[in-house]
C-alpha cells in the first residue's frame, strides 16, 4: 500500500524543491558515499595483487585487471562444493518453509477452534526468542537426534528456526485471499486440502515470494548454526569456509576480499530482482491499513 502512495507522491510532489531540500540532498549524498565506500574498497582489494597490497595505498586502484584472487578464492573456499551446499540448504529450506508456513497460517486463519488460536501464539514465541539464544540446546538436540553433519539435519533446523517468522508473515497476507472463492470451491465439493492447493496457494504467490526472499537471505548469511551443525568438509557452507579463510590468512587478504564478493553476489542479485517483495516482507506490521 505504502509503495503505491509513494508513487503518487513522486508524480505530484507535495513539497517544493527549496534551498533546504538542496542542503539535505548534499548531506545525504555525502552519507551515501560513506556507506558505499567500504563496498567499493572490498571490490578494489579483490583485484589487487599481493605485491600491490603491501606496496601501495589501500585507496589506490589496481594496476591491471586480473582475476587471480578469484581463482585462488575458488580453490581455497572449495567453491564448487561450498557454493552448491549453501545453495542447496537455502533453496530446499525456503521451499519447505513456503509450503509449511502457507498451510499453517491458512489453517490458523480459517479454523475457529480454540486450538488454532493457541497455535498462533505458540509460533510467535519463536519470533521473540531468536535461535541464537538457544544455540546450545539446539546443538545438543541435533547431536542426540543424529542431525549434525547431515544435509537433512541442517535443513530441518533452518526450517524449524524460520517457521515462526514465516507463519507470522503469511498470516498477515491471509486477508488478501477472498473467502468467497474458498466457499465456492467447498460448495463444488473440494476438500480442505484441494481448496488450499488449487484455490488459496495460487493467490498466495506474492506472499510466498516475500517469505522466500526474506528467509533465503537469512539462511544464506547464517554462520552460527552452520558452524555448529556441519564440520565435515563436504558439507560446509560458504560462510563457514569464508571464516576459515579469514582466520588462516590475516596478512594476505586479497583472496578473502574476492571470496566476499563471490558470496555476496548471489544474494545481491536475488535482492535486486525481488526487491519489491523484500520490502513488503520487511514492512509487515509497520504500516497501518
Amino acid at each position, binding site marked *: 500500500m505504502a509503495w503505491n502512495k509513494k508513487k503518487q507522491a513522486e508524480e505530484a510532489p507535495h513539497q517544493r524543491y527549496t534551498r533546504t531540500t538542496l542542503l539535505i540532498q548534499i548531506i545525504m549524498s555525502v552519507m551515501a558515499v560513506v556507506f558505499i565506500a567500504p563496498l567499493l574498497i572490498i571490490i578494489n582489494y579483490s583485484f589487487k595483487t599481493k605485491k600491490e597490497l603491501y606496496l601501495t595505498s589501500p585507496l589506490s586502484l589496481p594496476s591491471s585487471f586480473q582475476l587471480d584472487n578469484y581463482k585462488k578464492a575458488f580453490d581455497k573456499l572449495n567453491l564448487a562444493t561450498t557454493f552448491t551446499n549453501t545453495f542447496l540448504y537455502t533453496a530446499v529450506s525456503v521451499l519447505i518453509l513456503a509450503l509449511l508456513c502457507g498451510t499453517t497460517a491458512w489453517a490458523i486463519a480459517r479454523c475457529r477452534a480454540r486450538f488454532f488460536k493457541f497455535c498462533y501464539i505458540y509460533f510467535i514465541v519463536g519470533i521473540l526468542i531468536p535461535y541464537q539464544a538457544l544455540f546450545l540446546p539446539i546443538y545438543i538436540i541435533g547431536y542426540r537426534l543424529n542431525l549434525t553433519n547431515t544435509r537433512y539435519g541442517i535443513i530441518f533446523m533452518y526450517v524449524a528456526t524460520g517457521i515462526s517468522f514465516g507463519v507470522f508473515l503469511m498470516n498477515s497476507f491471509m486477508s488478501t485471499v477472498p473467502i468467497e472463492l474458498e466457499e465456492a470451491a467447498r460448495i463444488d465439493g473440494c476438500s480442505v486440502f484441494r481448496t488450499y492447493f488449487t484455490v488459496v496457494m495460487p493467490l498466495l504467490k506474492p506472499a510466498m515470494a516475500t517469505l522466500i526472499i526474506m528467509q533465503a537471505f537469512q539462511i544464506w548469511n547464517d554462520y552460527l548454526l552452520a558452524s555448529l551443525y556441519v564440520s565435515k568438509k563436504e558439507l560446509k557452507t560458504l560462510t563457514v569456509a569464508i571464516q576459515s579463510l579469514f582466520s588462516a590468512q590475516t596478512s594476505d587478504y586479497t583472496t578473502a576480499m574476492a571470496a566476499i564478493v563471490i558470496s555476496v553476489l548471489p544474494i*545481491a542479485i536475488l535482492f535486486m530482482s525481488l526487491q519489491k517483495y523484500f520490502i513488503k516482507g520487511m514492512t509487515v506490521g509497520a504500516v497501518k491499513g
Partner: protein
Amino acid sequence: MKRNNTMEKNMEKQYLLLVLPGLIIFTIGLIIPLLLAFRYSFTSWDGMSAEKPFVGFKNYLDLLQDPDFRSAWWFTLKFTIGNTIIQNVLALLFAVALDSGIKAQKVYRTAFFVPCLISALIVGFVWLKMFSNVLPAVNELLGTSFNFLLFGDGKTVLSGLLIANNWQWVGYWMLIYLAGLQSIPGDLYEAAKVDGAGAWTRFKNVTIPMLAPAITICVVGITTGSLKVYDLLVSSTKGGPGRASTSVIYQTYATAINGRQYGYGSAMSVSLVIVLLLVALIQVKGLKSKEVQQ
C-alpha cells in the same frame, strides 16, 4: 444438524493435518531445546557423560558471582542500548531526509540498504580491515591523525563495533520508517499547517504518533538483534581485546562448546532467553500503549 457437525469435525481434522507438520518441526527444533536449556541449567553436565548430576540452583548462583559472565552482560547491554538509540535515530533521520522531496530517492535507498544484505561475519572482517588498513591510509591522504585502530583498545572496541553494526543495519530500519512515513496521509499535515503548527510541531504531533507501529517494530527488532550479537565478533575482535567485546552468546559458546560445561552454559542461555522475553514484553506493551487507534 448432526450431519453438519460431523462435517465440521471432519474439516477441523483436515485443518489440523495442515498445521501438524509445522507444529512438530517447530516443537522439536525450538521448543524442546528451550525446555532442554532449562533442564540442563540445573545440572553440572559436561556434555559427554551419560549422567547429568542435578545441582539445583548452583549454576545460577555461580553466574551471579562470575565476573566473566557479568562483563559479558555488561558489554551486551552497552552494545544493545547504543544500537537501539543510534540506529533508531539515524534510520528515522535518513527516512525523513529521503522523504523530504530530494531527487533520486531510489539511489540513496539502495546505497544505505545494501550493507544489510551482507553476512554479519563478513561485516566484521570488512571493518577489521577498514580500521586497521583503509582508514589509516585516509589519515595519510588528508594529513590528519585520527585514531582509527578502534578494535585494538578495550576502551574503543565498543564504538568500533557500533560503527560496523550501524553501517550494516541503518538502511534496513530506514526502509521501514520510510514505508511508515509514506503511508501517512498528506491531509493530516495540511490540517496541522492550517492550525498553525510549525515543522517541528508537525513532526512531533503528526509524524511520530503516526509512525508508532514502525517504531515498535524497529525498537524491538534492533534490541533483540543486538542482544544476540555473535557472528560480528567472530571475525573481527574475537571477543577481545581481553574480554572487552565478549557478548553473552560468545561467552556461552566459550564456556559450553570449548570449555565443556554444558550445564553452566545452559544457565547462561536461559538468562539470555529470560531477558529477551522480558524486553520484548515490556517494549511491546509500552510502545503499543502509545500507538494511536485508527
